[in-house]
């Protein structure tokens, strides 16, 4: 993510502002609003929808996730470990004659090598998904908003964070309004 601004905004009651959130009625409005927020040059913002809206990553200008690479590296490592384990146990540590075939035969090692490769990849994918998303996370300022809890049902929300260098409480609010956002609220930290 792009750099943070050091400016701190506070509400009248003295709470630190996390950002401004606006609600959109349909995926279409939401999508166009995202495109416009991206074009307005904001970088520290996020959008929330009950399901992944097709193409929203492009509309938001998100970078390609690096998860596949991580998964591939860990997966191949797992497979390699699987092969090495069998090689070491059956041909080095306690060589065992089975069927009179060569100790070093690669053929019978394929099943376990494969399975361990898959197992490692699967864990890499799940843990990697959490890690890249910075989850699990106990709480988030947005969760305090009752309106935000409806995202999991049928609402579409965009939230521009106060740490964005272009953030400006009234300007950002006006922009979200002009994009068709409703129920615009300040989110407190």
């Amino acid at each position, binding site marked *: 993510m792009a750099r943070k601004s050091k400016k701190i905004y506070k509400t009248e009651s003295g709470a630190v502002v996390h950002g401004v959130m606006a609600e959109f009625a349909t995926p279409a409005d939401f999508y166009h609003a995202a495109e416009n927020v991206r074009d307005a040059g904001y970088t520290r913002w996020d959008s929330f929808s009950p399901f*992944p809206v*097709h*193409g929203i990553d492009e509309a938001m200008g998100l970078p390609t996730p690096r998860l596949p690479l991580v998964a*591939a590296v860990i997966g191949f490592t797992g497979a390699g470990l699987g092969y090495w384990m069998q090689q070491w146990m059956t041909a080095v540590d306690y060589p065992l004659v089975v*069927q009179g075939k060569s100790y070093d035969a690669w*053929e019978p090692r*394929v099943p376990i090598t494969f399975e361990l490769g898959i197992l490692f990849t699967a864990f890499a994918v799940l843990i990697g998904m959490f890690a890249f998303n910075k989850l699990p996370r106990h709480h988030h300022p947005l969760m305090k908003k009752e309106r935000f809890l409806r995202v999991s049902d049928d609402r579409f929300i965009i939230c521009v964070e106060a740490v964005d260098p272009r953030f400006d409480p009234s300007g950002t609010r006006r922009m979200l309004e002009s994009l068709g956002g409703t129920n615009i609220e300040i989110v407190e930290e």
Partner: protein
Amino acid sequence: MSHAASHAGHGQRRGHADDHNDHDHVIRIDPASVEAPAAWGGTLSTLLIFLGFAGLVVTVFGGYAAAGEHFEGVIHATGSWLVGALFCITLSLGALGLTMIFHQFNAGWSVTARRQLENMASLFPVCLAIFAPVLLVELFITKGGLYHWMHRFLVEAEPGAHVDTLLVKKENFLNIPFFLIRAAAYFGVWIYLGRRMFTLSRTQDSTGDRGLTVKARFTSAWGLLAFALTTAFAGFDWAMSTDPHFYSTMWGVYFFAGSILSATAMLVLILSLLRAKGKLIGLVTDEHFHDLGKLLLSFTVFWAYISFSQYFLIWYSNIPEETSWYIHRRQHGWQNLGFVLCVGHFVVPFLFLLFRGTKKSILAMIVVSLWILTMHVGDLFYIIRPEVYDAKMGLDLWWIDLGGVLGPILLYAGALLRKAASGPLIPLKDPRLAEALAHKNYI
């Protein structure tokens, strides 16, 4: 948007997926984009056909020049020719299977790619013409050079003579009349199915009748059943019975796996060449290539899975009739070819196709599809060649192999280009065309 295809009325909508709420729009397609390059139907295909014939002439000449006491040279030449012929047959077979599978899945995204498969599937008469000389030479000249079970002396006991007991048992299946009847039946089924898929689709180009798609779907339902049986038995007859002692229940699936992989590679190759020539703009996009690449990847893995399972079970159980097939291929230098196939037929394309970037690059796809097709030749070579003649013969007559393998392939390629040039490059009025044009992978 520089799409050659556009919707009449609201052209600017094009390019947005999911956006075809109404079906009554007319899709406008730039005719130049769906026409094969002029050379394909003319000079290029003529050149390929000429080179193909030249290759076959070299093979025939080599066969006779090297013909020894027991027709060793002729057997060598027919063996190579058989590899080339099987290559063409498996391409058409894979294409036929894939077309019918797409119909059965009601696939929308692949519509614009399907025509090239239909072209390949309609080429069974060419395959027959390429394959028939092998059978004729085998029946009338070498008489059991490729298919040892054709030797009468192996099954008919003369007093005191050595008889191959297994072949006597197999005589009910492996005998010349039944073999020919079966071959006729396979080609009958394939020519019919291939023609039908091709005609239904071409007719739709002019009539736009949606009922034809329903008919194609129905034909593919029973067609796939007939296809599965004929493909498996053709594999037994023409490839597996070159070692008449060997048997493997997996063989039919193995033959099919190679077919469908190579047909997909050929499809990708043709589409890449067309795109490189500036055709099919907006009709076959990067998104289609991404999915075709995924298909190529999964068929590569499928081939590896099937051929490994077959090898592995035979290796593990060590039953003489079966193991001898692989033992022969782990000696006399054939093990090198086996190693090349492990790496080249599986590891290299697998790693190469794992990346998203390669699947979307035309150049990379041309390279990988050519590579896979070459490896498929290697696979067939590995099946046929160690059986046909004395392994010690080695590669000193390599030019016969080259002519015998490349001749049929070039002929086939020429015929394929002609076919592609004879009509539009996509099914123009397929009811799912809009869906294929809007195709996009979101994740």
